[in-house]
């Protein structure tokens, strides 16, 4: 995203007190719940290492596991499609929906779907799209994009939801209790589940040796999305592979604890393709769309480790920047630290430089990442590319270049330090500076520490001379 747009988004976000409340209600609770879940699971660190190894192994042998998955998925009766990029992927889905003569389409939450622009693509073709995840249902009513990868409606408060449901539900309720809101949404969605022609899901894991697609939800909406309609379409990134169900288990343990702080998700389903001979229910057709959209570039680009991501959202819940500006300010599908690494790869570094730049590199994200992705290192790696490609403004690059030039010349550096101290002196009051020229971006919000006197080096040298004399 371009600099001005980002700055505007940030300032809108920071000036929205309601947003702050909404973000913190969710992220603070998520942080606390995650911490408890991790503490209560003595094997967490070991599982984290295991998870990392499994993902690294799959990424190393991606071609092998993709071929194995395809073979087994076909053997299960599914049809496998390969999509190079976002447009290609959503076109495949749209075409299948047309072929099936679909009118109503239910969809369970999938960030990959957002990544490939599927909601918009379906809307353009005038399908009736029904989002079935509770939070997705809420933001569909609000007409908002998701602001978090696990809680897409995180930017809205319960009060907002009450209003949205009152305006939009067929039998609006008076209550503002969460249980009643949930019931209202269930009533609203139930008939759509049963009358949809196509159900679309993402995938949390693709199991190579069985050809299965694993989905994880807390609401059971993925099961209701995939079972009643005639057609089930899966859209999944190619990095979602695991060798076997056994390999999915440690990752599931990590995912749920890191995402919601629960010990287990309510619904974990391994979908096995279309229904067979004696099956009583299930879809008649199952299509699996495997999406690259820049992922193989990440293999080449030294961003490999990012492909370990299991989309748990912990990095953003714990990010001081995300916690203050929220997801929408980033202006991309994926916000927060993981978004800062993934987005330049999808939208181009020029368009995604601001999130890369707006990071303190404090490392908390990596600390909580269940597959130990070195997010700060990868963010820095993008900055390096940005430096080489001259992406930042001339002013910012000039300042850094001046600094580098100066710092390579220690004596000149010391001289400049001494000059700076002299310049700061007249503005100093009781050890602090409230305002001085060129320090505005610091002093607008905080006092600047005034020098104690001469520089350390000067004082030190003087002391020594005195000593020796």
């Amino acid at each position: 995203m371009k600099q001005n747009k980002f700055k505007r988004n940030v300032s809108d976000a920071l000036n929205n007190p309601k947003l702050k409340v909404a973000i913190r209600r969710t992220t603070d609770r998520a942080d606390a719940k995650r911490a408890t879940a991790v503490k209560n699971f003595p094997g967490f660190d070991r599982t984290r290492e295991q998870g990392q190894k499994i993902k690294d192994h799959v990424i190393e042998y991606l071609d092998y596991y993709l071929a194995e998955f395809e073979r087994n998925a076909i053997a299960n009766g599914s049809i496998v499609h390969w999509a190079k990029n976002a447009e290609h992927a959503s076109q495949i889905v749209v075409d299948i929906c047309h072929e099936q003569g679909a009118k109503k389409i239910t969809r369970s939450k999938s960030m990959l779907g957002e990544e490939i622009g599927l909601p918009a693509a379906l809307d353009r073709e005038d399908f009736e799209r029904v989002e079935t995840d509770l939070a997705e249902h809420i933001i569909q009513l609000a007409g908002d994009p998701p602001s978090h990868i696990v809680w897409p409606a995180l930017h809205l408060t319960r009060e907002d939801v009450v209003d949205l449901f009152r305006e939009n539900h067929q039998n609006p309720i008076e209550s503002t209790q969460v249980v009643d809101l949930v019931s209202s949404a269930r009533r609203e969605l139930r008939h759509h589940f049963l009358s949809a022609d196509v159900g679309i899901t993402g995938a949390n894991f693709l199991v190579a040796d069985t050809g299965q697609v694993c989905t994880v939800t807390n609401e059971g909406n993925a099961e209701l999305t995939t079972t009643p309609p005639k057609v089930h379409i899966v859209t999944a990134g190619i990095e979602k592979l695991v060798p076997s169900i056994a390999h999915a288990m440690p990752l599931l343990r990590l995912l749920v604890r890191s995402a919601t702080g629960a010990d287990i998700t309510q619904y974990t389903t391994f979908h096995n393709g279309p229904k067979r001979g004696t099956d009583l229910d299930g879809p008649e057709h199952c299509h699996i769309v495997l999406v690259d959209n820049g992922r193989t570039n990440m293999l080449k680009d030294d961003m490999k480790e990012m492909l370990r991501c299991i989309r748990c959202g912990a990095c953003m819940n714990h990010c001081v920047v995300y916690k203050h500006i929220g997801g929408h300010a980033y202006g991309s599908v994926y916000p927060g630290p993981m978004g800062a690494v993934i987005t330049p790869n999808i939208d181009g570094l020029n368009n995604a430089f601001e999130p890369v730049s707006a990071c303190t590199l404090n490392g908390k994200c990596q600390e909580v990442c269940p597959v130990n992705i070195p997010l700060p290192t990868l963010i820095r790696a993008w900055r390096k590319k940005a430096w080489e490609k001259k992406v930042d403004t001339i002013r910012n690059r000039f300042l850094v270049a001046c600094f580098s030039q100066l710092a390579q010349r220690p004596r000149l550096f010391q001289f400049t330090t001494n000059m700076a101290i002299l310049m700061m002196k007249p503005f100093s009051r009781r050890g602090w500076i409230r305002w001085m020229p060129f320090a505005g971006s610091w002093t607008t919000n905080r006092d600047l520490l005034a020098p104690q006197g001469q520089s350390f080096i000067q004082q030190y040298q003087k002391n020594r001379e005195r000593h020796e004399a």
Partner: protein
Amino acid sequence: MKANVGLFVTCLVNTLRPSVGFAAIQLLEDADCNVSVPSAQSCCGQPAFNSGDDEGTKAIARKLIERFEGFDYVVAPSGSCAAMIRKFDELFENDDPFAERAKSLAGKTFELLSFLVDICDYTVVDSTLDATYSYHHSCSGLRELNVHQQPMKLLKDIKGLQAKPLKGSTECCGFGGTFCVKYSDISNEVVSEKVDNILAANADILLGGDLGCLMNIEGKMNRVTDKEAREKPTSVMHTAELLADLLPSNDS
């Protein structure tokens, strides 16, 4: 034989708070080290490195390596600067003549407080201070160098000094080097929250091991308490300053 320690002062201490540098020297000497301060030193290169300017960083690193490689140890009163020097070993390609030298320097570079505890087995003896403190664990030291228990261990031995828990004590204060000026408004939100937590902890002193974070925090605290027209209840100090103040040689 005494270890020869080269003190890397860091830009902020050099410019704004030399007392931290002198405190570091006192502590290191008390820990039986021979301390030298090369006068031709500049910066560890973080602003360049974190902006992606690897060539600039390398040029800075070369100068630093030449100045400091002769010492047994290089010590900085800052986790983030020490962590940066440690990163020099990833900076140079294998065939670069500086690759080996960078690696060797990285291996002997330490943050002050962890150096005192982990390498010098330094302990605080016979110190008393009737006060309460909260600790801000700066991110680079904490996550890149594992500096966490060491300062706690030193402070625990000061009689009368009591810890007051600080909410979010391991969370970023919003300084982030160039971040705090480039994204001043976000940084302000982050540090405001930090200051709220510190004021709520209500200790006499806030301690930490990185001047960048400390001046960000105290600078904000000044504004907050000014606005609320009240005395600053908590003073902010570098841990080295507190420890050195308590040395017998500084008894007043």
